């Protein structure tokens, strides 16, 4: 569009190529009432940031308190520093049950998300690259799968798993986590923009098989897609509570969320667990928070491709 427009001198009030923030007319208007509304907007944004960050900072402060100080000292005031004592207590309580839960969660999330990402990328790539009868109908089914309420299929899944003897095992949580229709959607969208057809054609002319073309040509180009889909799958299984609740009886198989949930439910009877639940919550939040801050570029791009389509 811009290329067809005849070149002309910049009209007043329109800064060519400017982001629309520094145009002369805008700057001229930024005085008096505009400045106060600017302050109002930023104050409002800051207030919301206080709201979103408050519970996390409360958690951070209170993970350093012992059970007595939790109730005795005001919420945000640090008391005696007991973080290390809490951590030692947490990781040694019930023969190190918490560490086991953490390891289980990592297993469910890392192994599950890795496998799930491969499965999704393969499918998404095939949806982009090949044509076959009924392809778009099948793709419609995948998109429909995103909307299926997961709590609704957990009960029949439990009964099916118990019939094949998988209930109360690692598999009962791992296998359902492998299916990620949203991942297939993301993989197709990414594939469309990252894998040019000519490159694949060239690989084919060189005599590479389809699988080899995928592995050594397409997969490296899809690495941003890999990280994004992995991140979404990882978050999904790290957050999953209902499925393990339904599937698992044996507390040594619990992911960390389910374990903390059980401790939390017994607090009225066992108040000595308070500091463990609080410190444990902090410990289970940290890995994901770090991943999110470190991998900002990826979740942003994932959410963007989800939003624009």
């Amino acid at each position, binding site marked *: 569009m811009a290329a067809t427009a005849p070149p002309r001198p910049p009209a007043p009030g329109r800064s060519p190529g400017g982001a629309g923030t520094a145009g002369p007319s805008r700057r001229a208007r930024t005085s008096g009432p505009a400045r106060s509304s600017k302050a109002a907007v930023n104050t409002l*944004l800051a207030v919301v940031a206080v709201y979103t960050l408050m519970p996390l900072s409360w958690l951070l402060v209170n993970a350093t308190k012992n059970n007595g100080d939790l109730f005795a000292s005001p919420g945000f005031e640090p008391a005696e520093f007991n973080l290390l004592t809490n951590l030692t207590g947490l990781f040694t309580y019930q023969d190190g049950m918490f560490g086991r839960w953490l390891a289980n969660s990592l297993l469910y999330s890392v192994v599950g998300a890795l496998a799930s990402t491969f499965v999704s990328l393969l499918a998404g790539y095939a949806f982009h690259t090949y044509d076959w009868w009924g392809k778009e109908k099948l793709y419609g089914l*995948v998109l429909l799968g995103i909307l299926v309420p997961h709590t609704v299929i957990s*009960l029949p*899944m439990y*009964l099916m798993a118990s019939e094949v003897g998988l209930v109360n095992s690692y598999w009962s949580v791992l296998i359902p986590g492998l299916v990620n229709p949203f991942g297939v959607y993301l993989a197709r969208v990414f594939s469309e923009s990252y894998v040019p057809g000519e490159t694949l054609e060239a690989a084919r002319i060189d005599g590479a098989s389809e699988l080899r073309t995928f592995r050594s040509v397409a997969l490296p180009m899809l690495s941003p897609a890999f990280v994004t889909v992995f991140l979404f799958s990882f978050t999904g299984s790290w957050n999953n*509570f209902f499925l393990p609740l339904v599937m698992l009886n044996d507390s040594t198989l619990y992911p960390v969320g389910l374990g903390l949930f059980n401790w939390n439910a017994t607090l009225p009877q066992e108040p000595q667990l308070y500091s463990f639940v609080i410190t444990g919550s902090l410990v289970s939040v940290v890995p994901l928070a770090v991943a999110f801050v470190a991998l900002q570029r990826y979740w942003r791009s994932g959410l963007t491709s989800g*939003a624009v*389509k």
Partner: protein
Amino acid sequence: MNTRLGRGQRTTPVLFVAPFFILFIATLVAPIGYSLWMSLFREQATSGLGFGGTETVFVGADNYLRALGDASFHRGFLHIALYCLIYIPVMVGGALALALLVDSAMARAKKFFQLAYFLPHAVPGLIAAIIWGFLYTPGLSPVIDLLRTVGVEWDFLGPDGVVLSMANAAAWQWIGYNMVIFYAALQAVPKETLEAATVDGAGQLRTALAVKLPMIRSSVVLTMLFTAVGAIQLFNEPEVLRSRSSAISQDWSPVMYIYQAAFTEHDYGLAAAASLLLALLGAALSFVITKLGTRWKEV
């Protein structure tokens, strides 16, 4: 790009999509089919005394009628209706307002605000509910102390407060996520369009509501869809807060009702029928939202 393959290569796409679809059928399609089947049967004790085993009897629509006639199932739907009424507008409206504000020329530190709003999403929903549970507990909560100093006595876990408390915990976790989606969509609005609006004399607020908002309609509709489907499955927040509040019964929400029917009472037929009814509500909501969304797009 789309490739028509030679004869020998036709099997490739099948091999590529097979792992996904085998799993898709096993963990999504089959359970739904199984649910439909199960909802038509009822386990009954073979002898009236409950000795011996159980037998499975075909009961037709009886499980559906039992669920539909159960007052506690109705209450569950009333509870989530109230919850949705608070949660969905606050969530979608709030995320939209935040995105438009951060996108406006007036906002500073855009990156920081986005990260600050998104960070709660790194907290698993269950842990979020546990943390808010503490922040609702008198003696532990600085929020209650703060409200008291300004003269407000509010019982977060009382019968009037619980729905709001659940909506707050869920909104806290998701508002930043949706805000980032809207913000990303706003970035795709062409600069020329915005400049044209400015030249036409539209102020910031008018530009946001009359130009930007209509251009990100599809994101808004999609977010509304996911939010609604998620909201009717409300489980984590009431289940966690239940240990602290006497206002939340064991079958407070439809999913809690289903869980109880299945795992406390082992009435699988009833649980299956109830979950299909809930899925039906989800489908109906999705349909209505999509239809309204399409109409909005045509305006």
